[in-house]
């Protein structure tokens, strides 16, 4: 992966929405630390999780793609614990449900911001995968970016993938 400079506002939209959702709903202050291009491949991409839980939402309609958020155990427990005002010790069905709601709110907020940029799409129902021993395959012709975040509760990252609207136009971000 290559380090990137965020050139337009799309990735910034996702960053701002993520910070707002976690601050408003979970009382967590998080900061974006770095970004990396996820290289496009004619054969598709295989993304292997390396943290403890992933929530994802698909995009369809005017723009096709997906957004995934992958969190460490500590970050996931702090997030859902903050949302509910209770303490969790392990990743259970409630934590899974809460991380699904987290990515749902991030995707919804980003959708609203991207609509204002003329990019319209529909959201799928949010899903969650618990554990780290799995692989996600992204279709060919997909451009993506990974955004890394940190907070006092732990680390997490977000991966954003789009087809079509970014075909041949590297305006999602720029390699340096």
């Amino acid at each position: 992966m290559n380090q990137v400079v965020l050139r337009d506002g799309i990735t910034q939209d996702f960053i701002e929405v993520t910070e707002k959702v976690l601050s408003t709903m979970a009382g967590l202050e998080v900061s974006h630390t770095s970004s990396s291009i996820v290289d496009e491949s004619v054969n598709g991409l295989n993304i292997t999780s390396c943290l403890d839980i992933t929530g994802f939402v698909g995009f369809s309609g005017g723009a096709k793609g997906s957004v995934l958020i992958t969190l460490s155990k500590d970050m996931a427990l702090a997030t859902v614990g903050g949302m509910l005002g209770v303490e969790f010790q392990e990743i259970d069905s409630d934590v899974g449900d809460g991380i699904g709601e987290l990515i749902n709110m991030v995707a919804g907020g980003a959708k609203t911001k991207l609509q204002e940029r003329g990019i319209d799409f529909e959201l799928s129902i949010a899903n969650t995968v618990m554990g780290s021993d799995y692989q996600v395959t992204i279709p060919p012709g997909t451009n993506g970016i990974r955004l890394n975040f940190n907070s006092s509760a732990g680390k997490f990252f977000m991966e954003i993938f789009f087809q079509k609207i970014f075909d041949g136009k590297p305006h999602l971000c720029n390699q340096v």
Partner: protein
Amino acid sequence: MKVLVVDDSAVMRRIVKKALNEGGLSDIEEAENGKEALEKAGNADIVFTDWNMPVMDGLTFVKEFRKTSQTPIVMLTTEGGQKEVLEAMKSGVNDYIVKPFQPNVLLTKVRGLVK
């Protein structure tokens, strides 16, 4: 006062219930989707419903429920676009809250819509 909370996320239903409980509202019923909400909404004084849900989404629920009832409905959703807000309001929603939200906004809506 009876409140119906409709959301496929159990965590989100708990967040809404907690906020309403802290405002003194304790008679709260839950539904996981629009179909279940149609069976329960007849007894409610106000309904908070999500939009994107499996089985029956919130907008379809609103359209169906409005055929027989004028009970206040608040859409509580991540769908914050102008197009979506207008569509919901045209379908019979009384008010609209975009997630994420501050908990006290729920009580403000209840007080404004239920006399």
